[in-house]
């Protein structure tokens, strides 16, 4: 033996008889649709909404698009910090939020302006957030967490929040918004897995917009879909056409109902980020214009207009008036944001702990005195210009 085990056979190159393997090729993952890209409506799947609600959905789609356009312009003029637009994802954003209740908690990823506004955040506060005013992250009046800039980091908190809801007996769910990039993080894996174990009312809502900054989805994961990942965690998965607002509404409504019964759901909303990752990004460096145009042809607003036309609801929608209304809201929000008072430097110290620690108090007092003694510091601190 010479201390070595029996020599092994040459490694085999084929499968042994009777050894089965699981393969994603064997999975059938349906993508839920109500209105096809060509405009065909599956009547049986149209959600049971009132005409006014159907029209309201359109108004929200326009609001998301207009908000993104205006915010991007504002950033270009130097009146907003870095901004992440949801252009192309309007149906995915609006349809999901339309399915939620006020008591639900949203954990945003950043592009969901309309979802946050629908959930009760004011447009002024949304602008202030992008102007780097932390006060706005209070998300006053709405069950909305701070935006998860660290991609994927919110997922285990979603599970914890849902666990809290379960313990408290709340009639609500916790909804994590995230993109395809987040699905490669450990926090996603651990958060969803734990939710599956706990059977808590959590909805993990992935807007698969095909890019994590420059990386296309095909290079993000070897998995064909995000939805199938649900199976590995013992939770339910739903895949939906994210440019079909009614389909998204159906998918998230269903997910919410299941989550309420203690079955967490991972929803993959398949959409496309037509704009840059943020205002700091140049997508021409990594993708072809033809690809962007091919998705423009699947525009979620156009598709929904087709549906409204099909239902004879378009007459009730004054396109110009809707845009004017949103523009006026935006103007008003910008004015309110401009009026937001300048803050004292104390603000950066006093919110860290419930009670200032002695060292923090020392630093704050020192800095306050220094600023008093050195008015030239004003040349280095530009609160207003940067928001």
């Amino acid at each position, binding site marked *: 033996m010479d201390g070595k085990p029996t020599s092994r056979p040459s490694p085999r190159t084929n499968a042994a008889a009777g050894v089965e393997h699981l393969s994603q090729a064997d999975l059938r993952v349906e993508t839920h649709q109500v209105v096809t890209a060509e405009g065909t409506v599956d009547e049986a799947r149209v959600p049971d909404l009132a005409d006014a609600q159907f029209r309201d959905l359109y108004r929200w789609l326009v609001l998301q698009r207009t908000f993104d356009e205006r915010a991007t312009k504002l950033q270009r003029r130097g009146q907003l910090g870095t901004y992440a637009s949801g252009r192309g994802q309007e149906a995915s954003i609006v349809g999901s939020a339309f399915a939620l209740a006020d008591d639900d908690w949203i954990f945003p990823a950043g592009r969901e302006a309309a979802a946050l506004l629908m959930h009760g955040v004011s447009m002024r506060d949304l602008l202030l957030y992008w102007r780097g005013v*932390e*006060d706005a*992250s*209070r*998300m*006053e009046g709405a069950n909305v*967490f*701070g935006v998860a800039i*660290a991609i994927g*980091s*919110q*997922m*285990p*908190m*979603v*599970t*914890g*929040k*849902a*666990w*809290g*809801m379960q*313990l*408290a007996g709340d009639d609500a769910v*916790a909804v994590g918004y995230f993109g395809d990039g987040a699905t490669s993080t*450990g*926090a996603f894996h*651990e*958060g969803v*897995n*734990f939710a599956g*174990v706990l059977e808590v009312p959590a909805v993990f809502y992935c807007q698969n917009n095909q890019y994590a900054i420059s990386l296309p989805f095909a290079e993000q994961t070897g998995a064909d879909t995000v939805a199938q990942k649900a199976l590995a965690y013992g939770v339910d998965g739903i895949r939906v056409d994210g440019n079909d607002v009614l389909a998204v509404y159906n998918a998230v409504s269903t997910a919410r109902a299941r989550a309420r019964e203690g079955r967490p759901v991972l929803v993959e909303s398949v959409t496309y980020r037509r704009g840059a990752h943020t205002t700091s990004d140049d997508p021409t460096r990594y993708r072809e214009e033809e690809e962007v145009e091919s998705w423009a042809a699947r525009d979620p607003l156009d598709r929904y207009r087709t549906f409204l036309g099909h239902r004879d609801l378009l007459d009730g929608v004054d396109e110009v008036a809707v845009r004017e209304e949103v523009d006026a809201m935006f103007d008003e929000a910008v004015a309110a944001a401009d009026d937001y008072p300048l803050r004292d430097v104390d603000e950066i110290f006093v*919110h*860290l*702990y*419930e*009670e200032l*620690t*002695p*060292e923090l108090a020392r630093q704050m007092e020192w800095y306050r005195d220094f600023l008093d003694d050195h008015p030239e510091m004003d040349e280095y601190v530009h609160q207003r210009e940067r928001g």
Partner: protein
Amino acid sequence: MTMPRETIVQAVNDALHTEMAADDRTLVFGEDVARSGGVFRATDGLLEAFGEERVRDTPLSEIAIVGAAVGLATHGYRPVVEIQFSGFLPPAFDQLVSNASRIRWRTRGRLTAPMVVRTPYGAGVRALEHHSESLEAAYAHVPGLKVAIPSTPADAKGLLTSAIRDPDPVLFMEPKRVYRSFREEVPDGEHAVPLGEAAVRREGADVTVVSWGAMMHPTLEAVDELGVDAEVVDLRSISPLDRETLLASVRKTGRCVVVHEAAKSGGFGAEVAATVAEDALLYLEAPIRRVTGFDVPVPLLSMEDYYPPQPPRIAAAIEETAEF
């Protein structure tokens, strides 16, 4: 009042039982904490006493444990989670840095994370790799996170009680090397020791020796053997740091030695030394000395004892400083 004699790990268990009984928002979860009572038995009996809703075994999932605690804390609960060994905490560092420590700040107080992460730390128990780390300085560096490290059973109970009641997140690092090495009287019932207050373990006039956690014991042993009139300060919390007690002692003795188990460079001893240099430099009669682990990973068990400050190394530094 009866004063039961307890080890550190019993005192931790005592604090958990007492605080869970006092506040039903308090939850305990982590790996193997419920049925098995924790690998060190720190959570023994909690499941039986408080039930499955409040005491729960979790998947092997540090990110999920710490992240879920943040979510629960924002929903009105008081999670006290266990990370089995501090060497397994780094994956969840992101949850501490990105979420727990800043949720209050980022939401201007609307959402808060009153939670405790308990974790045994340090070398000396002949364990496997990644079971011996002392990364306290890394956590103390995170704004918004408090870090407490007891060295005695009474403080283990008192500091953990304060950590559980604290309105902000606290990392509670337990010196597992001395988990069971001695007993002392621990106040029965509710017992709180404030965070951010150091303790003077021994008064003296010639040199201040500063330490915390497991290293308090070789430090006191070295001082006892030396016959130098040393003042020994146990920081107990390194964040917030009790600057006043530290500075008062150094101003009195004019000399300062810091002892910690963690690697030297960037260790919390550097913060102690800088604090003294900034605010008590003119009182110093000798250079500040650090007695620490070396800038290497903690060796496996065959070489482990070379790593942490042992009484002779500590004694040599105190002697040199006192005689400088």
